[in-house]
């Protein structure tokens, strides 16, 4: 019976951790729908704050959606070929390239953003356009696309598939299009979801890279938290939840977390 006690103790602990993570989310959703959070739910429910957010911050929502899709296109164009090369040739050089590509994730976004500003900040047309933010987002999300596609390519027997196609007369580009791309579909999908979600929520870099005319959703959130009443901040957060929820659900459904696979390999 001692085991039963241990089980309940661990269950209780885990439930507490769940509460720690989920209770503030629920509180914030409630606050965004309450007339006056200070008085409480008795003051009545309203969509007034959500409409205020929509009127005041609509642009940030559209900019974030546009940015994350543009970021997806860039990471697909740059990342898929890179992953293919890294899968085909496994040398010290390609490993070093992989290491380098991950650097923008390891280095704090603040440092990357400052580096971009001191280098390209003087090009005012570029500095004030949303492309400036796009560059930062693409740097930060590219490794996730590469890793995700690479993981799938490493799991299949690319060599045999390509040799088979080549013996039937398929050229390099035909093999790439008809053999490689269809085979890494799962990796591309998982990587794409990751890229869009990360770009949608990126703040560390974006806060320095943005201008008053290129405010993304998280930048708008920071603005609202700092200067507006709690209810509006909450309603805005609610809008953000609604936007990333489908992405998260899709990620959980399609893409089992792949990163931990690398972790455990050494322990065997």
């Amino acid at each position, binding site marked *: 019976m001692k085991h039963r006690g241990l089980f309940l103790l661990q269950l209780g602990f885990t439930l507490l951790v769940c509460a720690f993570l989920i209770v503030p*989310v629920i509180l914030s959703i409630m606050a965004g729908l309450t007339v006056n959070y200070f008085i409480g739910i008795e003051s009545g429910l309203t969509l007034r704050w959500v409409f205020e957010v929509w009127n005041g911050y609509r642009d940030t929502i559209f900019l974030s959606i546009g940015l994350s899709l543009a970021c997806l296109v860039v990471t697909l164009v740059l990342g898929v070929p890179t992953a293919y090369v890294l899968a085909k040739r496994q040398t010290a050089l390609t490993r070093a390239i992989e290491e380098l590509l991950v650097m923008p994730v390891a280095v704090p976004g603040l440092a990357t953003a400052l580096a971009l500003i001191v280098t390209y900040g003087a090009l005012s047309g570029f500095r004030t356009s949303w492309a400036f933010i796009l560059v930062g987002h*693409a740097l930060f999300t590219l490794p996730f696309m590469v890793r995700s596609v690479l993981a799938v390519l490493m799991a299949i027997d690319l060599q045999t598939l390509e040799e088979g196609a080549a013996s039937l007369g398929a050229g390099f580009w035909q093999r790439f299009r008809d053999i490689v791309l269809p085979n890494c579909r799962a990796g591309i999908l998982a990587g794409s979801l990751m890229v869009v979600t990360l770009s949608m929520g990126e*703040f560390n870099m974006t806060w320095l890279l943005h201008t008053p005319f290129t405010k993304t959703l998280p930048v708008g959130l920071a603005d609202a938290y700092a200067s507006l009443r709690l209810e509006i901040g909450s309603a805005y957060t609610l809008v953000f939840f609604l936007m990333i929820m489908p992405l998260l659900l899709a990620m959980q459904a399609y893409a089992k977390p792949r990163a931990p696979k690398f972790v455990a390999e050494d322990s065997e």
Partner: protein
Amino acid sequence: MRRDTQRLIFLLLPAGIFFAAFFLLPMARLFFIGGSGKTGWSAYAAILTDANYLNSLFATLSVAAATTFATLVISGISGVFLQRHKFPGNGALVAMLTFPLAFPGVVIGFMVIMLAGRQGLIGQITEFLTGDKLVFAYSLTGLFMGYVYFSIPRTILTVMAAAEKLDPKLEEAARSLGASPWRVVLDVIIPGLKPAFISAGAICFATAVGAFGTAFTLAARINVLPMVIYTEFTLSANIAMAAALSFVLGAATWIVLAVARTAAGSTVAAAG
């Protein structure tokens, strides 16, 4: 074969040019700008010689270390538990624990305010119980809470994946030899999970050192390095110092992650 190599290089070219132009070159420039201020190259030593910077370095490292420790303990217990016991509702718990995975730092800051801020839940409960309102969101404690909140989802995923690969036979053997549950945890489970702990811990540490959004939402007065860099850059317009500090910060986090990677196998760090 030679033609193939040429084509592979061609495929690598777009990413290579993009990366060189927008990361390597800017980082090199950041490095030189760091040494171009009125104090010259000694700006790079200022993080250790200037009392203010040293204090914020110390605060940053303490919060990061505390975050890493707390996150590993919490995720270790819950992760192994959820991996070992499949009961009805298990999936729902895992989904809830990983739900905040994609929250940006600013949103995490707001979650801390909902819990421990001026109108927060903890304040209301303590006011009701003791008459005193407990508010700690706008301090280092609040920041610590935010970073733990941020780190639990990703760490739990890593721990669960590693726990799945642990061989239950080892635990049975230990138990049959008379080991207490506590000894099994210490001598079998923790050593088995060590690589996962090292890599997940390094990611917690690096994110807590470099993150900016949470501190930004909570208070401008929190004296951690990313906030100091931001203040140097915007308020004091001391671009050289900001560049030097952020270069040091970037190099330090990269080294932490690289060391952990060699110690534990590779992972992609996710700093939000």
